[in-house]
């Protein structure tokens, strides 16, 4: 036991991201509970006959006064309910609204994992740009509401480096909402080198633009979700669709649910079709790649050729016209990397470039790792990229690093215990979790 440096104290690790909340036991290699961060709620008092899923239902006492009803989990927002709004507590990677955090974590730990948080130390992750107020609030929730015996909040940049087995790394994290570049040295983030942008949002917006804009060969695609379709007939590629929408539902659908569902359609299309060319943009190369067939819930299906590569290109290159028209354009990946490196010591650059860690679900974009490695080796011939092939490791790198950290014997001296919390109050969080 001592040989491996591990000593498990059955700690829990909770990683709250934009797309999902991951929770599990420290020492495991996969989170036990993965639930969407989006949640559905009824803003007004619902009628008594509201249909609720088993896991989606939330206990009445835990829901805040703001929500009459919360729908959390796998059958939360994804089930259409009359008048249900959908929201996400995370804005730009940071927790913006703490009211649903407790129900979300509670659902993951108590309902999915079926364990009592008061019996386990809990390690929570935070993005590098988290505010001190936010982490203190998180500690407060954990200690006061979940009654955890011990708590620690760790940085996802550092945890991603740990998940890759490195103490010093250059973490390129592309998530659902944010893309960030974090230099980590000896297990500490260099805050001056941290840069991030909401690049994935831009990519999704671009994908939406491509889909809904009519082209000479097809009209704009209706992003109608599955839940809104009553029946449909199979049609040949590029033919007009034949489907009946659920007219009864349409007027009762909220705007937030609508946009959530559309985003999901776009995401699915991106995940299936979109890719990035590994050698930079080249019309001929994009043309030569085989087109992919994709069918939307309406039954419309068509082949996507060059368009699917244009989407991925947004990660690495923005056209001058786009830059000129939009001064607040999120920085692309090469710009983020350059800016981050410029803030680092010259001596560190070579070391960091030899330990690039690519992580985050967004980095699983087809061809992303190849492209990044090509871009990097152009300027840094010695650059070495660690991009786990295992999708679990890539998507839940932060959780995995937390799982490793919280199962180490030498880590247990770092926990903020309940005793310390009561004695020192909020300031202990900033002192302990550097």
């Amino acid at each position, binding site marked *: 036991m001592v040989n491996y*440096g591990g000593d*498990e*104290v059955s700690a829990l690790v909770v990683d709250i991201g934009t797309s999902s909340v991951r929770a599990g036991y420290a020492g495991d290699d996969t989170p036990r509970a993965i639930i969407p961060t989006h949640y559905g709620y009824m803003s007004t008092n619902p009628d008594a006959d509201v249909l609720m899923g088993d896991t989606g239902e939330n206990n009445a006492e835990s829901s805040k006064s703001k929500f009459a009803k919360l729908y959390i989990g796998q059958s939360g927002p994804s089930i259409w309910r009359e008048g249900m709004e959908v929201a996400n507590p995370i804005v730009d990677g940071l927790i913006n609204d703490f009211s649903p955090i407790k129900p979300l974590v509670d659902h993951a730990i108590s309902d999915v994992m079926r364990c009592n948080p008061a019996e386990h130390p809990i390690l929570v992750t935070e993005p590098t740009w988290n505010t001190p107020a936010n982490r203190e609030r998180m500690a407060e929730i954990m200690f006061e509401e979940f009654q955890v015996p*011990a708590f620690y909040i760790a940085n996802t940049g550092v945890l991603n480096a740990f998940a890759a087995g*490195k103490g010093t790394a250059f973490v390129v994290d592309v998530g659902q909402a944010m893309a960030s570049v974090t230099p980590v040295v*000896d297990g500490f983030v260099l805050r001056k080198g941290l840069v991030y942008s909401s690049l994935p949002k831009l990519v999704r917006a671009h994908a939406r633009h491509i889909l809904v804009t009519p082209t000479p060969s097809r009209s704009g695609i209706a992003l109608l979700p599955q839940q809104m379709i009553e029946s449909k007939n199979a049609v040949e590629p590029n033919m007009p669709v034949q489907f009946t929408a659920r007219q009864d539902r349409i007027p009762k659908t909220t705007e937030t649910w609508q946009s959530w569902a559309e985003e999901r359609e776009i995401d699915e299309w991106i995940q299936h079709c979109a890719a990035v060319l590994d050698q930079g943009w080249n019309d001929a190369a994009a043309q030569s790649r085989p087109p992919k067939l994709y069918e939307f819930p309406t039954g419309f299906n068509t082949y996507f050729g060059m368009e699917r590569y244009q989407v991925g290109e947004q990660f690495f290159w923005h056209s001058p016209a786009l830059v000129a028209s939009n001064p607040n354009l999120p920085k692309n990946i090469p710009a983020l990397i350059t800016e981050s490196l410029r803030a680092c010591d010259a001596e560190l650059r070579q*070391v960091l470039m030899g330990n690039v860690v690519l992580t985050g679900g967004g980095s699983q974009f087809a061809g992303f790792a190849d492209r990044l490695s090509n871009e990097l080796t152009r300027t840094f011939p010695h650059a070495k990229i660690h991009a786990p092939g295992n999708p679990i490791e890539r998507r839940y790198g932060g959780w995995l690093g937390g799982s490793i950290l919280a199962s180490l*014997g030498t880590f*247990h001296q770092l926990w903020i215990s309940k*005793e310390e919390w009561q004695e020192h109050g909020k300031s202990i969080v900033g002192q302990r979790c550097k």
Partner: protein
Amino acid sequence: MNASAADIRSALSIEPSISAGPSQPKRTGSSVTKKPDGISRELFSLIGPSTPTLAPPLTKPRLKQKPNLGVDARAKWVLRPFNNNARTDGLELHHWVKANSDPNTEYPFAKYHIQTTNYTFSQDEYSRFLEDKEWTKDETDYLFNVVRDFDARWYVIHDRYEYHDGPPRSLDDLKDRYYSVCRKLVRNRPWAGDEASKAALLSSLQFDKERELTRKKYITSLENRTQEQVAEEEALYIEIKKLEQTERRFKKEREDLLRLLAGVDSGLQDIVEDDISSLGQLATDPKRKKRGALEAESPATPSVPSINTPLLKRPQPTKNAAFDTQNCITRTELPNTTSATKAAHQPAFLRSFKLPVPKAAIAPKVTQALAELGVSHTRLVMPTRDTVAQLDSLLEATMALIEMKRVVDKVDYDIQVLKSQLGMKEEQEGDDAQGDTMDVDGGMVEGEAGEDGRSQSVVSARSGRGSRRQSRRSLSVSSVDTPRPNTKRQKRS
């Protein structure tokens, strides 16, 4: 196969004979019910009481005795609360431990909680030795706090260093201030230990800001090379490699020539050797620089380069001729053209493993020639550098001799052929007068051939054949001692 005779008989349904011999196992009633060793219970129940024919080979092989793991080999584990001594509070966590372990032992990971030595100073000490017009006491205090917080991880310290209304500090400013204060404290405080440990501590606190800055400037300049500069550098490097190769080839050719003409110890070798080494050094220089730069930056974790790293230099091999001769050291120059790759690397070897061997094509001839001389070249009793060189020259001389011999014989044969052609022409001219001389000639050929193959003047097909045989014989180096330039050299060497 120890199938007993009884078994075979029963298989062939022959009545058991009395002469069954003592080797036959007794089959009593008790042995039928008892399960023999080495057969699993299931198998035994399948084959039933008709004891297996193959029982002996199935007996348990003799293995090492199993370790005795106590009476009960199963370990009992219990979930037990523990206190971590590295913590200041009484947080009680639970972990699984073996039930027989001592619950009162110290937490095994607490020992990894190592505190680094922190230097602190009083107001008095500060005003006496630590005044610096660039730094205030408050800022120095702040610096020491940050250093303590981050355990002297300088990159992190520099990153987190945010002293309000202080001037911007570079990483080297911070290091310089911290180490200079520490040095002054160590120097001015009473020291409990001996002088050596104090000196060691002081040297570990050494920090040369100028040197660090220069080093960083070099790194930046190395990084800021444009693509063209890098390409040019590489082109130059390749160019110098080419030059070096040509030089080496040239040198080798010249050496061969010198050896052929003037012998090994022409004395010119050293001059050339010297030349080459200097060139080689020149050529490897950029590479060394590169490698050095990489070394400085390659560690996966840049544990803040300890303050005196730049002082460290690899000791240069002392090339002192006097020292070498005194200690009988002979330096072999590595071929400079071979790159420092793994494939080209030549490991240390015994000289006896790399004895010179003649070329495969003429090896048997060389062996034969040396055997005739009574020299055994395949084995050296003591292959020292000198003897190996001697052997090498011997082989070379022999090869040269054989080559010479071959050429001589060829020329002889040519002469002979030409002579015979001449003779035929003469014959045609004076045809009538030749009746019996031919026979005489033939006899003469036979006679003379024994002593000198070359002195043949006559014509006939037979004589030609004879002379060829002769030439073949002369190839066998019975005449090694004939005075020739190369043998002369052999003697000399």
